[in-house]
């Protein structure tokens, strides 16, 4: 076992474990992420020239602590009142792959921040950006769009639906992004 192969092994091991750090971090001191700056296209239909609407990586999508905070907010802000633990009721279901206003992180962010017709309230002045990004992470984990490792397990409540960490990874339909801006 020469030193070179040993160091190679350690580097490979390190690379393997790097994502672990991000998933497990508790971002207490780090500055809270801001709202997405670029314009957010909500649907495929667009007047005039096609506008670019890139996918912004949700800051807490692969962070277990952020997603768990999102889960707690989902309960505390009574989102289940309309979305009933993700299964849908008055509000649309969040666990399936149907996305009316798009499933990209910044689209869900603007859905929560601005609100939507037919009853979705606007939370822009009620929750700060960090909290909305946490909710985005949790909502996306409900339907299996975030990495499995950072999805929360069952809650200490009645077992209403399989927990996000049991939901298989999903491919969302009609993500609402104009085709022109499909990023590789």
């Amino acid at each position, binding site marked *: 076992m020469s030193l070179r192969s040993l160091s190679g092994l350690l580097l490979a091991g390190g690379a393997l474990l790097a994502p672990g750090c991000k998933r497990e971090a508790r971002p207490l001191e780090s500055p809270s992420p801001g709202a997405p700056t670029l314009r957010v296209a909500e649907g495929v239909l667009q007047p005039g020239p096609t506008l670019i609407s890139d996918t912004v990586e949700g800051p807490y999508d692969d962070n277990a602590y952020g997603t768990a905070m999102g889960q707690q907010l989902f309960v505390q802000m009574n989102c289940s009142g309309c979305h009933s633990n993700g299964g849908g009721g008055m509000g649309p279901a969040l666990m399936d792959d149907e996305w009316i206003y798009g499933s990209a992180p910044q689209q869900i962010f603007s859905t929560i921040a601005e609100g939507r017709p037919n009853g979705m309230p606007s939370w822009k002045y009620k929750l*700060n950006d960090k909290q909305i990004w946490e909710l985005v992470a949790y909502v996306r984990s409900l339907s299996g769009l975030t990495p499995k490792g950072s999805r929360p397990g069952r809650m200490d409540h009645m077992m209403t639906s399989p927990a996000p960490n049991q939901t298989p990874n999903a491919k969302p339909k009609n993500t609402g992004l104009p085709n022109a801006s499909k990023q590789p």
Partner: protein
Amino acid sequence: MHSFFHPTSPQAHVVTTLWWWMFGVGGAVWLIVVIAMLYAARARRGERGDDGLLHVSESTHHAMERTVIGAGVVTVVILLAFLAYDFSVGEALAQHPDRALTIELTGHQWWWEATYENPDPSKRITTANEIHVPVGRPVQIKLRSADVIHSFWVPNLNGKRDLIPGYVSSQWFTADTAGMYRGQCAEFCGLQHAKMALYIIAEPAAKFDAWLAASATTAPLPTDSATRFGEQVFLTASCAVCHSIAGTPAMATVGPNLTHIASRRTIAAGTLANNRANLTGWIVDPQAFKPGTLMPKSTLQPAELQALIAYLETLK
């Protein structure tokens, strides 16, 4: 003084006397053992036999047997005595009066919610982190947890009792002298377990009844423009999403009830003294004082912030 050495309730007195007895006898036993060890280390009693080992005569051997058996018997006697004493203390602590002032305490991640039961719903009082109790009257604290296991413990008044999700347990005490007694969560409950304190304020019955009546009142309507703008900020900004103030449309129960926040001596579960500077600092960035707490950083403009502080200070 916030400690076990200054009991201010019959329950705590019983246990502290037990402690001083145990400390005395235990200390004596330890001293005897250490002295016996030093004596044994220097005794050099055995005679060297031909095989290079040390031997003792038959009689010394019997003496040694008697010593060990004697010491063993003394140990058993002391232990049984303490066992009886423990049971008597256990018995004394288990005496619960059937009629007592009942306070429901719910443990949240990193603060305490106290509710004063009352058949008349308009008189039910919900407060946080500071509990007023009358001196001399037995008090029953009903313990319930909203998330993880916490432990209610005010050393001056009684031992600790865990708040376990799925269980409702109770703790009884009768404060016999007035005073402000600090308690702290004693079961590890996450990031801010270290700053989850509460205060039991024991006061004479008259003063307590006055406090109870005052607490049952709703928040005063703001009079001048600054406090009215402050109330507007409270209701429209993110405060009303988690907090509630009786008499205003804000009724969320995620965070502590702020109806009489100005009358409380501390904020943030006993972490900060309740004054204008701390209140402002806490609202602007709670994570600086308690990293990991669920209260978010505020997004208020300075003018809105000043008005909000002015309004909150009217909530006596």
